[in-house]
């Protein structure tokens, strides 16, 4: 019998042969990206591959993502929904506003969203937060993984409009998308500084760690509005 340990609300460590990160499947029987389904006492868990998901890597790196079952999440850079699917599992009574601007990725995301009632897909540029102001409500968490040169600014502009005062910003920074040549460490410092000072709102960075060995040249950041 596989062993299940609760790591934080909605996030589990399931041990079957080896320890694996997992969430409770909101769409039983259905696999999203080749992950495994594990049944334990009538509950179906989906393994969460940290190499395929920056958020997954952040969880293993002990970022406190503090989601509850009814949390509202604004997810920027949803791609075809690999990670969105796990967020959807974690907030079964909540809502995930999944923003993605590439029609091609959106096709996959729509397939996912049509099976998961808490995922609301939006085909739009996350760099223009006003353009979805008629749709998105204030949220408890903004997760952003857009791999864009101006990602700190995108995060700040979205936070200023949509993040609740006591909400959190989780960010994956890809060094190469900001500067292809510079040393990643320098890039990270620069991005943290931008979050702390450059825009409105200004953030307090609570945690910042690189995502090795799961993702090379990526930094995870947890921040809140100062």
């Amino acid at each position, binding site marked *: 019998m596989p062993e299940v340990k609760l790591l934080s609300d909605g996030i589990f460590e399931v041990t079957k042969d080896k320890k694996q990160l997992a969430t409770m499947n909101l769409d039983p029987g259905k696999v999203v990206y080749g992950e495994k389904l594990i049944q334990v006492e009538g509950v179906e868990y989906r393994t969460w591959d940290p190499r395929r998901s920056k958020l997954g890597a952040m969880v293993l790196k002990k970022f406190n993502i503090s989601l509850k079952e009814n949390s509202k999440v604004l997810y920027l850079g949803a791609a075809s929904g690999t990670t969105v699917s796990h967020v959807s599992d974690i907030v079964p009574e909540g*809502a995930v506003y999944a923003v993605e601007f590439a*029609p091609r990725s*959106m*096709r996959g*995301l*729509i397939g996912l*969203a*049509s099976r998961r*009632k*808490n*995922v*609301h*897909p*939006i*085909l*739009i540029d996350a760099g223009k937060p*006003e*353009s*979805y*102001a*008629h*749709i*998105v*409500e*204030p949220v408890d968490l903004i997760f952003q993984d857009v791999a864009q040169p101006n990602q700190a600014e995108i995060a700040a502009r979205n936070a*200023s*409009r*949509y993040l*609740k005062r006591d909400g959190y910003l989780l960010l994956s920074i890809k060094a190469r998308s900001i500067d*292809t*040549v510079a040393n990643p460490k320098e890039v990270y410092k620069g991005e943290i500084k931008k979050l702390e000072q450059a825009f409105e709102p200004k953030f307090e960075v609570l945690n910042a760690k690189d995502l090795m060995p799961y993702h090379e040249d990526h930094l995870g950041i947890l921040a809140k509005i100062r």
Partner: protein
Amino acid sequence: MKINTWFGVLGIGRTGEVLEFELFSKDIRELVRCSIALQENRQLLRQHLPPAGFDLKTAALECGFVESSAEYYSLLHEVMVEAAKLQVSEAFTADQRIIQAVEALDDINETTNLLSERLFEWYGNYFPESGLSGEALALFIAKYGSRENIGSEDPLYPRARNSMGAKLEAADEVLLKGFAESVCSLYERKRQTEAYIQDSMESIAPNLSLAAGPMLGARLISVAGSLEKLAAFPSSTVQVIGASKALFKHLRARAPSPKHGIIYSHPLINTAPWWIRGKIARALAAKLSLAARIDFYSGEKDASLVEKLEVKVEQIKTSNPKPPQKKQDSGVKPKKRRGRK
């Protein structure tokens, strides 16, 4: 103040309380249409933008658009999924179709070359003296099969009579003929795809098509990702489009910036003497970039664009009649490229 939301237009007070409202009907198609219009029309949106932190769901409950939070999310969900579907289907625009055709053409060319070579080698065992290759060979095999079937009126008849090639057995003949027919139809597909690209370019990007030629124009759109992106690029980028490997090296290692994008296949450049190619490339890139902008924003055909370009190229030619004496700037002499058109 008045604000737009996905479910209606609200008048709200200073603390966000709803004072008046005009709700949309709960018809999904109607809601989808309104939501997309708000997303895409910046003016509409800016005029009545909800304030930061505005709680849409509470407002929707307050004004009675929905009875419960569950109803709010289920309706929102349906609208968002349908809106995204519609937008995705509309995103496959004419320039995206051209990009698919350009990529298909590359695949066809690669496959055709590969299969033609195979046919050449294979059939060479049966009729090495044919002197045919490519489409001509494929047509020949599809028509005759064995060289023994050539009629005496065919100019290849004498060579076929005296060939040292092996005898083609019936089973092999069926196989080779079928294979040759496939190759012939690939050549046909290639012409069809090229014609499609030419026609489409003429209709969606007439200026780019005129200045670059339809194929080069289509390739530029393909590498850029869309006509819109191409129109947004500075001309210095247009000049190096397609030189991505060299460009990457330039960025990583700070090597000299590449000069040879795909625009170097343009006749104005590839027929010019080497020492003015860089200059012509710059002038051409500027005009192509302008052409893409006109095509994207207005679509009117403007023949003067090409005339101006030709004048400019003449100027460059007359003011640089001879190769530079010393190797100045970093202008490394481009190596002669052989066997490539």
